[in-house]
């Protein structure tokens, strides 16, 4: 039962971590390698508001997500837009920005384990003799709500439909009056906000350290490659695949190999099915 419970929690955490990356790539085709840095940025902003300015926690969360979204939008508007379509340059530029942000925090003295955020709900509950803390249960519920909300947003709102239109066929979307640059900025801001939301849900379980940014980026890339770059559904399914594989590895093989699972998943996917589980467009291109 512990495999089911913690597999589910781990999978939802992975999905939350990767959704922002998948969204940005799905719409603007920009691989946002600053994703992990934005995750950490949101954590530190919240920490500063909460611990230094002593603002109410919900207000800190709202402000941090908004600021992270604005930072993401600005990164696209002032840097990535100029190199759009040049994949290698996009990767190098976004990774460099992420690196500068993360190492900037380290240089600024944000190091050590003293940067923490409080959990939303204290205490734990025992399910089938397995102890689970309430915050983790909340992560699963909010994660499910985010995935559902994202589906509703992209299917029933004008901006959501415009984003999907962009993702499906940018030229057709342009002909229908959708400004692709504006939508790409919106997508980047939205993806950054999702990274921030994931951070605020997951960081209270641990602490805010610079290294998390690199790990989050690696996991997000693994999930998106396995799920198929650009596919949100694929990203969610891949999260469950990798999430449960990690827990099974931990139980039957050893925690030591947990990180290997994500890296192995990338390698196997690239060998067996380079387009990933749901990367249909890429698959067609490969066939041609």
């Amino acid at each position, binding site marked *: 039962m*512990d495999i089911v419970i913690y597999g589910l929690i781990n999978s939802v955490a992975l999905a939350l971590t990767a959704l922002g990356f998948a969204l940005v790539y799905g719409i603007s085709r920009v691989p946002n390698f600053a994703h992990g840095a934005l995750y950490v940025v949101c954590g530190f902003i919240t920490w500063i508001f909460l611990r230094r300015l002593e603002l109410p926690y919900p207000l800190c969360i709202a402000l941090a997500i908004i600021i992270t979204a604005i930072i993401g939008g600005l990164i696209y508007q002032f840097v990535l837009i100029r190199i759009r379509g040049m994949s290698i340059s996009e990767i190098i530029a976004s990774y460099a920005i992420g690196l500068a942000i993360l190492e900037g925090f380290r240089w600024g003295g944000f190091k*050590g384990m003293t*940067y*923490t955020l409080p959990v939303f709900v204290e205490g734990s509950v025992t399910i089938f003799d397995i102890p689970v803390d309430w915050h*983790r249960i909340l992560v699963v519920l909010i994660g499910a709500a985010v995935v559902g909300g994202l589906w509703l947003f992209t299917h029933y709102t004008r901006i959501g439909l415009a984003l999907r239109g962009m993702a499906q066929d940018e030229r057709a979307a342009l002909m229908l009056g959708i400004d692709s640059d504006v939508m790409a900025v919106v997508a980047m801001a939205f993806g950054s906000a999702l990274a921030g939301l994931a951070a605020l849900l997951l960081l209270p379980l*641990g602490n805010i350290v610079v290294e*998390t940014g690199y790990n989050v980026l690696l996991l997000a890339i693994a999930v998106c490659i396995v799920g198929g770059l650009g596919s949100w559904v694929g990203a969610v399914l891949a999260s469950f695949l990798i999430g449960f594989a990690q827990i099974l590895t931990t*139980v039957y093989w050893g*925690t030591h190999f947990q990180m290997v699972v994500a890296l192995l998943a990338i390698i196997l996917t690239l060998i067996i099915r380079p387009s990933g589980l749901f990367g249909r467009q890429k698959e067609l291109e490969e066939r041609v």
Partner: protein
Amino acid sequence: MKAWSKLVVILAAVVLVVGVSATARAADPIVIGAPLSTGFLYGWDAEKAIKLAVEEINAAGGVDVGGEKRPFTVEVIDTRDLEPGVPVSEALLAVEKLILEKEADFLVGGPVRSEAALAAMPLVSKYKKVSIVTTGVLTPKFHAMVAENYDKYKYSFRIHGEAKQLVTEIVTQLMDIKEQFKLDKIFIMAQDVAHARGAGEILKKVIEPKGWNVTGFEVFPTGTGDFSMGLIKAKKTEAQVLSIWMDMPESSILLKQWFDMKIPALPFGSTLAAAEQPGFWEATEGKGEYCMANVVNAGNAPSDATEWTMKFYNAYEKKWGIAPEGLGSSSSYMAVYVLKDAIERAGTLDSDKVVAELEKTDVMGVYGRLRFDPKSHQVIPSLDPEKGAVGSIFQWQNKQRVVVFPKSIAKGELKLPPWMK
């Protein structure tokens, strides 16, 4: 007359130049190179302690080198050796840069990670620089290398406790726990680094014949952010003590999860960087209460091991606004004093002569009587501060780090968390 006056002016100029250069030479500082992983606790705590000692020594007039008072100066380079994925070569470059570019006369501090410190030993020998490691490096191989090949590695010293000594202290404490609380099942959780895996293995070998049942041995990669499955394993095996060997900052997550999941096992950390820091209580919102940590030497947590212990503790807190933070604090501080003492006795900065004097070191320091084994250059440990370098194990109790081991310096009694009673 004109020629005479010219001669006088020239002579005065010569006297002035010679005088000025002599003064400058008198003020020439002794450069201490500190290769430290400054982004991590075991790097920055050592840096702060070294700078504190240097400041104190300089304020008292400096170092008497053959009748000439010279100040210490510190050059720090970040070795990054505690960062995951950074190759050992980075630390070696830092050491070489300190020697060649910064012209360090002596090395004090790191490299911090055992692997990097071992790799730096031949480099230190090549340049004949006296190096005193003061933080992190726990592998017994360090002093074994000196003992096996003295002529080559005689420039390397270690002034803090090493893994075998740590295990000895931990085993002694575990036997006390067994007797006092009737606990005999232990689960070992180690970070995937040489010293932690090695020490965990040694502990397993040593305690099993002493009646302890090792219910599991789990290795966690550096950077792990979720320990729930490991904790569930520990709970399933009915472990009563968690032996934790981790120096990564994420280890505080382990303690938070341990509290949230109410795992009925006493956490006992060694090189548990997160729990060593005074900010641990705040960082875990008190969830780390009852966590024990071995801080290698006294003085890294408040105690009255010697008259100097609290003087150092308070001076550190006064200068840096925070109490000594990790296992590298008191040893890094003492290394500078021990070096000063050896230089003064040698009367020169010559490495071979300073090595000979360091081998004769016998001072009552912050964590007891400090002497080096003349063959291995390892500081001689003891459970009694009157006899040797004494260790320190504390437990978090009501926002305080209360030293519970060794008995000779203990400030309180060990307690079990309420859900274990």
